[in-house]
């Protein structure tokens, strides 16, 4: 796959595919920056600390059964991690369409956000909840 335009991203939350309600997704896989600079150094020496991961999804709000609110609202009160998977396209996982998968907790759920005359959107932020962190399976 060469450079591409994002048109058909796949978003699955707790086994529920909400791609048809989404229009923005961000997958972050981070490592803390640690400063190991000691006396006598002339430049900073930095190393990596603990890993962290986050997936942010912006979705059109929908209060129908099985849609955005019904799927996300139980997760904000839940302490059990759920699997969230994001792919660049809705095609099956492959070497050229890898998935980003993590076991996550929902930490932010914006029930209602928007301006007059604009579509009602909601943003959901999932943070890593397992030692595996973000994984990138291709099959």
């Amino acid at each position: 796959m060469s450079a591409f335009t994002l048109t058909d991203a796949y978003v699955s939350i707790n086994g529920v595919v909400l791609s048809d309600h989404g229009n923005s997704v961000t997958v972050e896989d981070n490592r803390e920056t640690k400063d190991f600079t000691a006396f006598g150094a002339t430049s900073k020496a930095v190393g990596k600390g603990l890993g962290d991961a986050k997936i942010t999804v912006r979705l059109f709000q929908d209060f129908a059964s099985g849609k955005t609110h019904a799927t996300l609202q139980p997760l904000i009160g839940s302490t059990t991690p759920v699997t969230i998977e994001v792919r660049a396209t809705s095609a099956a996982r492959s070497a050229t369409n890898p998935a980003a998968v993590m076991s996550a907790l929902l930490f932010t759920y914006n029930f209602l956000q928007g301006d007059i005359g604009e579509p009602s959107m909601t943003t959901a932020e999932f943070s890593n909840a397992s030692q595996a962190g973000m994984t990138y399976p291709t099959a």
Partner: protein
Amino acid sequence: MTNLYRALTPAAEAAFSDGVFEADFTSSQERDWLDSGLLELVPRRYRVLSDNYELPKDNTFVATMLVEIEQALVGAGHIERVDDEPSEEDEDEPEDEPVEEAEASATQEES
């Protein structure tokens, strides 16, 4: 919401039940018991109700789900339980009602 569990040690059997049993644990209680290795989840059958679950609508599947995961999916209308009672190992349970009484009550209902 209750879930199905199986006791894995004599101590757990003494505390709960032999074989498969249903219990109404909180999510943290459930996590503690499962992490301790004393209990395991028992698979149950579900039917897909929505058109955006990872399996096609109306399909049935067997899975073990943590209580909060199941609550989230059932509450959102994505899946429903197909069998509400233990289906794997409930053959050992004795009949509550003798055969004659069952027949009698069935006859009464018919009349």
